[in-house]
């Protein structure tokens, strides 16, 4: 124990270099943990976004693309599918429930989704949890009603009864708005930690109504305009939707129905199993994740080598210190363990400061990440894997500390005997 105290006192004597060294290690540890944490949390949030859905169907494109735009609101659909194709498969005896989705519009950067009551009833996330309304109700028969996700309501300070205008396209700043047909907020969903929080839900009829007088790709002029009241009295059955989700009576028939949809002769469509598409997405992201992980490991290595350099260069200056210690009766292994303690103390300080820094960063960036990327980084204790990483760093530091320890061990005897240093 006195050896450890001695090591600390020696470090305190060189506190400026010691603090810098520990800080370099802290930064690298923080980077490593941040990469690891973002990776696991991104995976967890992806995995918890969809549950209980057996098939997702959209226009023929790629399975990952379809999964991303239909569930995660990332990217855009390549094409719409016909409403009667949806009706055809919704009526299939194997199908327990079907949720149509119509995408493409937005409100201040938040995506708008046209759907039906079935969405609130059957869509599940996390561990088979249904959507819950925090206040208000689901949209009813009037087409101009909107149900907000929790994040939309929070960020834009909407409450029940507010009027809002949807914009054409998915840009954050939209120049073309559907301002002749405002929507009323009738419900706000509870927070789910999924992209649902960042979505505005309207009925399919509402989606049809705001586009009813768009003919040549622009809103109609003058007499061609159709007011909100006129639209209410029109037939608002959609012609096309973007995608739909299916729940089946029996999971075993998943492949059969998937096959039927993919070979549907009415129009080219693609049915995917969300779990399989998610797995494909992960194996694609896996390479990038591994690259990031390796880079941050090398940064940690650089930090540790910096520590090694600092200790090794200090050895020369401290030959007198070692010689004095030897002269008062310290054995060579005392000197060696002194240096190992020193390396360990530096690494430990670095690791602790790095973890602290990580938590400060998480606390500072949490709201921003949640609002802009839908990524929820909890201030949780390190996971078992993170503990092993930290222990690995300390182990590596001990290993590195043994290099100067070995040199000091060899030199201490000769130095102690020579008169001039």
């Amino acid at each position, binding site marked *: 124990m006195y050896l450890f105290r001695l090591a600390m006192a020696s470090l305190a004597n060189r506190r400026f270099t010691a603090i810098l060294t520990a800080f370099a290690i802290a930064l690298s540890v923080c980077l490593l943990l941040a990469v690891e944490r973002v990776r696991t949390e991104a*995976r*967890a949030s992806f*995995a*918890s976004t969809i*549950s*209980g859905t*057996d098939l997702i169907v959209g226009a023929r494109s790629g399975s990952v693309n379809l999964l991303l735009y239909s569930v995660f609101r990332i990217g855009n659909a390549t094409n719409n599918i*016909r409403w*009667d194709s949806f009706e055809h498969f919704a009526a299939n*005896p*194997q199908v327990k429930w079907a949720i149509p989705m119509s995408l493409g519009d937005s409100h201040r950067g938040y995506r708008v989704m046209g759907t039906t009551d079935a969405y609130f009833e059957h869509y599940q996330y*996390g*561990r088979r949890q249904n959507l819950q309304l925090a206040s208000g109700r689901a949209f009813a028969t009037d087409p101009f009603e909107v149900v907000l996700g929790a994040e939309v309501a929070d960020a834009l300070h909407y409450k029940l009864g507010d009027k809002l205008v949807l914009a054409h396209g998915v840009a954050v700043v939209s*120049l*073309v708005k559907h301002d002749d047909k405002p929507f009323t907020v009738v419900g706000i969903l509870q927070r789910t930690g999924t992209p649902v929080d960042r979505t505005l839900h309207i009925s399919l009829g509402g989606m049809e109504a705001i586009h*009813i*007088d768009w*003919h*040549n790709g*622009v809103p*109609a*002029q*003058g*007499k*061609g305009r*159709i007011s909100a009241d006129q639209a209410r009295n*029109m037939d608002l059955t959609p*012609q096309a939707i973007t995608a739909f989700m299916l729940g089946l*009576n*029996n*999971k*075993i*028939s*998943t*492949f*059969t129905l*998937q*096959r*039927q949809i*993919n*070979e549907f*002769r*009415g*129009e080219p469509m693609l049915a995917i*199993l969300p*779990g*399989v598409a*998610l*797995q*494909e997405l*992960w*194996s694609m992201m896996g390479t990038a994740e591994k690259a990031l992980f390796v880079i941050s490991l090398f940064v940690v290595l650089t930090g540790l080598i910096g520590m090694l350099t600092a200790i090794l260069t200090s050895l020369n200056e401290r030959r007198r210190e070692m010689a004095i210690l030897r002269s008062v009766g310290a054995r060579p292994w005392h000197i060696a363990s002194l240096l190992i303690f020193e390396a360990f103390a530096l690494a430990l300080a670095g690791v602790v400061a790095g973890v602290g820094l990580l938590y400060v960063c998480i606390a500072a960036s949490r709201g921003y990440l949640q609002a802009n990327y839908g990524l929820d980084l909890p201030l949780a204790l390190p996971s078992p894997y993170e503990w092993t990483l930290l222990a690995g760093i300390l182990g590596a530091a001990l290993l590195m500390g043994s290099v100067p320890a070995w040199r000091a061990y060899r030199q201490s005897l000769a130095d102690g005997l020579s008169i001039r240093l």
Partner: protein
Amino acid sequence: MRRALLALLLMIALPAWAAEPRDLSWQEMIPPDAPVEVPNMTPLHDLSNMADALSAEAAPAAKQDLPNAPVVATLNDQHIRLPGYIVPLEVSEEGRTTEFLLVPYFGACIHVPPPPSNQIVHVRSEIGVKLEELYQPYWIEGQMQVKPSTSELADAGYQMEAEKIYAYELPE
């Protein structure tokens, strides 16, 4: 000198005076006397259904695989071990697959016709399995449940509550 200064002043002032641009809206780019576009609410054509009509004439409907293949009832309640590939259905937050279909060959998803219903086992697992690759086969141990066909609904099939799941390795 004074003249030069004046010229300089003019150079600065003139553009500032002239350059206040007019805000233009996209709507103004359509002439006001453009023919009023009367929305046509009836579909212009019904070609959307042409594919159906043509395909009905072209060939018989796509052949269905056996959605309701017979099952072996005696396998019910037997404790068995079965190798197969995992097609994930439910993935937990920790990234573990807790519900999946077990199929006899990889690629049962899309490349070839799907296996008949008596070649698929619907497996649930409490702790789940961490899938790294879809093409890694696994052994599944557990109690087999056979659900016989009850109606015209294709709900026959094998189900299993997995007790153990571990990677399948080629026998030495």
